[in-house]
């Protein structure tokens, strides 16, 4: 049962994030943010089933349905409508050939965000470039 609840919660958070809402684990709040055309249906247990608006995302339309019990606890999340596009497609080959840099150039001058190197271990990390980047102020 615990596993089911966890899986439900992760589905919910995925759907919420896909919508681009601020994180919310409360059903009624989510319903409130889905807009005026949100429909609510009373269900047997005294809870409600709420169907959100169709949200247009980068990958196509998404619509979710959330069921809550009388306490407002989410009991079910259904995705009514999925995007039909596969967003992974956009990422295929979204990289270029490596660009060779002047061998005498110090790493600090190369304007890099991350480092790819041969098996940087925890022992070697302290002296690594990646360590320096990780400590850079945001």
């Amino acid at each position, binding site marked *: 049962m615990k596993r089911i609840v966890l899986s439900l919660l992760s589905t919910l*958070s*995925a759907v919420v*994030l*896909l*919508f*681009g809402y601020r*994180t919310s684990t409360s059903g009624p709040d989510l319903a409130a943010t889905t807009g005026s055309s949100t429909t609510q249906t009373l269900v047997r247990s005294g809870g409600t089933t709420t169907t959100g608006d169709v949200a247009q995302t*980068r990958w196509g339309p998404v619509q979710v349905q959330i069921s809550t019990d009388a306490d407002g606890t989410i009991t079910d999340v259904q995705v009514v409508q999925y995007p039909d596009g596969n967003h992974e497609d*956009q*990422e*295929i*080959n*979204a*990289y*270029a*050939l*490596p*660009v*060779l*840099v002047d*061998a005498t*150039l*110090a*790493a600090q001058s*190369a*304007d*890099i*965000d*991350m*480092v*790819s*190197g*041969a*098996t*940087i*271990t*925890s022992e*070697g*990390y302290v*002296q*690594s*470039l*990646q*360590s320096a*980047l*990780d*400590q*850079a102020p*945001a």
Partner: protein
Amino acid sequence: MTTVATARRVEHVMGMPISLALRGRHTDDAAARDAWAQAVETLRDVDRVFSTYRPDSVVSRLGRGELDLADCPPEVAEVLALGEAARVQSHGAFDVRRGGVLDPSGVVKGWAVERAAVALRRLSETDFSLGAGGDLVCHVAGPDSPPWRVGIEDPHDPTRVVAVVPVRGGAVATSGLAHRGGHVVDARTGAVPASVASVTVVHDDLTWADLDATAAFALDHEAAAWLTARGRVGLVVRADGRRELVGPAATPHD
């Protein structure tokens, strides 16, 4: 290019530093922290199953014959299948079994980080770059987001980079001897590569970037030719310091 604020986090899992860089909407809020916690937990779970340093791990017990594959979590079969595919495609230079010892570490790392990145992909309007001991998964949320600039470490001087690769969506893996002598050998001969210092592969997913970088490195002087034949993109740094780009438009270089 405008400067974009980047939030960074580090944890050590599986004996490796795990580095995360986030840009965009969720960099330091509850959603970002949850996604990071999930990513780290995924790696810890993988370590519990696959670590060859833990005698009680599933893989250690499988290797000693105390467990059947059927008794293992399904991801063990998945990893071994990937290892077998890599063995065949590298003509045996890559092998998860050497001298009777089962060591799928060469498969697990990239595969595990790709799994860990799933939690980060759920962060809306957020770019991330997740690195694990020098291998990375990168993602940008929108068409206008700048690419992540990934420096490829100089295998002869870890304070320098030999190349930079811009990545908007994809993975970068580097295999070599730096930091850990004799880590990769040709499984057919046990020989440590002598003519190649490091191999970097840029690919759609880290599972195959990592497998191909490791296999190419084990293939030693055949590395660049093998990667080219597979249509891969990357960089081979030779032991003498020469750099060889691999890819569709690559031309011979210094």
